[in-house]
């Protein structure tokens, strides 16, 4: 199922705990590091880098593949994809094989074949969105940057 709305993305994040981040980089200027660092320090998700080129990022062990991650931790709730769009179908196949419940293609990772593979296999699919931004949309972070979250409520947010 392709998640088109903010409410659907929020439900996915609310029911998810583990995030396997394919292509997470230890380079502090890379977008993937921004997202990894944000998710790790917020503590909302248990985030793990999937990157054969690095042993760890900020003390968190990195796995060379989704299969290696799944062998130790079981199926991830979300596979978050920071790879070239051309590489996305292969990542989708590996995510399906690892039993992932959802696959999240970050900004610019748009590949029709990868979307179809994951959707057909029953994964929840998010395309061309950032999991950091969508997380911050509902925890007040995005609002602090003056961004339009679309969240209207007269209820006090649980801190």
């Amino acid at each position, binding site marked *: 199922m392709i998640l088109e709305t903010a409410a659907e993305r929020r439900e996915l994040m609310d029911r998810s705990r583990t995030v396997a981040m394919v292509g997470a980089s230890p380079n502090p*200027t890379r977008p993937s590091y921004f997202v990894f660092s944000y998710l790790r*320090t917020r503590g909302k998700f248990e985030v793990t880098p999937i990157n054969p080129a690095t042993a760890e990022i900020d003390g968190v062990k990195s796995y060379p593949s989704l299969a290696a991650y799944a062998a130790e931790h079981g199926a991830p709730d979300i596979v978050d994809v920071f790879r070239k769009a051309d590489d996305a179908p292969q990542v989708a196949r590996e995510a399906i094989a690892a039993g992932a419940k959802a696959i999240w293609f970050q900004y610019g990772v748009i590949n029709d074949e990868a979307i179809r593979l994951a959707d057909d296999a029953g994964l929840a699919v998010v395309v061309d969105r950032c999991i950091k931004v969508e997380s911050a949309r509902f925890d007040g972070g995005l609002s602090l*940057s003056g*961004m*339009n979250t679309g969240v209207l409520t007269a209820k006090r947010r649980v801190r």
Partner: protein
Amino acid sequence: MSDRAFGFRTRALHAGTPPDPETGARALPLHLSTAFVFDSTEHAAELFALRTYGNIYTRIGNPTVAAFEEKLASLEGGIGGLATASGLSAQLIAILTVAEAGDHLVASANLYGGTITQFSVTLRRMGIEATFVPGGDVDAIRAAIRPNTRAVFTETIGNPNGGVADIAAIADVAHASGVPLIVDNTFATPYLCRPIEHGADVVIHSATKFIGGHGTVLGGAIVESGRFPWGAGRHPLLSTPSPGYHGMNFAETFGEYAFLMRARAELLRDVGAAISPMNAWLLVQGLETLALRMPAHVANAQKVAEFLHGRDEVAWVSYAGLPDSEERERAARYLPLGAGAVFTFGLRGGRDAGRAFIEALQLWSHLANVGDAKSLVIHPASTTHQQLSDDELVAAGIGADTVRLSVGLEDVDDLVWDLERGLAAAAKVAAVRA
């Protein structure tokens, strides 16, 4: 949470201003604090590197200011907002986010005089050149776009002559060249026109005017659509590593938020034109009632324009809401709820008649502002536009006889009564001259 698309009035009251999570306060708290404590050294490092969201220092962001930014962005239909000390600083920051020395802008010639001098004097000294296109002519805009053009700029309703921009056509021409359209929407406000819905990419406001609505505080704002492809290569300031932020590529890192993130993290930080949280708080109060005030402004403006249109002492009235206005078709398309509340007219008898007219008025305040709840009047050629050369005045559609009105919320019969007194005084002068 639901995905309901809430209406304008609902968003004016609720967007950006949920109950305060700390205290439960229902009204927006006024956070008059220059700086904010960090949770830990790691938190501080994450904040400074822009890897997490939060408050550091009010020059860069403040929770009260952010509430104003989000509310305005919601009303304009943008992805987010950035508030500044004034409309001119909003404009400067928007342009410096996309352009640097050696770059070029294309702008309508029918702009606020302060904008024309910001472009033709200050930005030119900084190495950014602007080409002004008379009348917002779409073919002329297309012809003026160069390989180094980084933005096209117009006003929804031109100040002061009231021309209505063909936003969709200008956006198409700009986009065909990979260039964004920046629209100053001050005179229309998001209640009368939302330029992003017509294809604009960046919206600028002097919030000092109708958004504040009471003539009390200065403020400016930028709203961005989130749709423009900043990473496509036409804007290297956004799509190449930035020395202002240790090599960060804003388009790659922030995607659809690239423009607003660079505007805040580099330009608002370095220009220093921060809005006071107090001002942002007052502007939020203004936005809450915008949808109630604007119809009243527009209704009064329409009646005043019709009154002037029927008077012998008046040579012409430039209000897009009049049946014989050349702007009527564009006003019907872009301003269906009314053509705004600021317009110009010409007095017979020229400059001396204009002086007599203004001096005879009792209720209309003679000052250099628009968008107050109170009615305002000015003679642009001797005030707001006096820095312009004769050629620039002609290009901007301003004559020596031009008087600008900003129609307020008084009883319209009283406004007309006062104008009649002014016209009588002007007629005396005109008769002596004749």
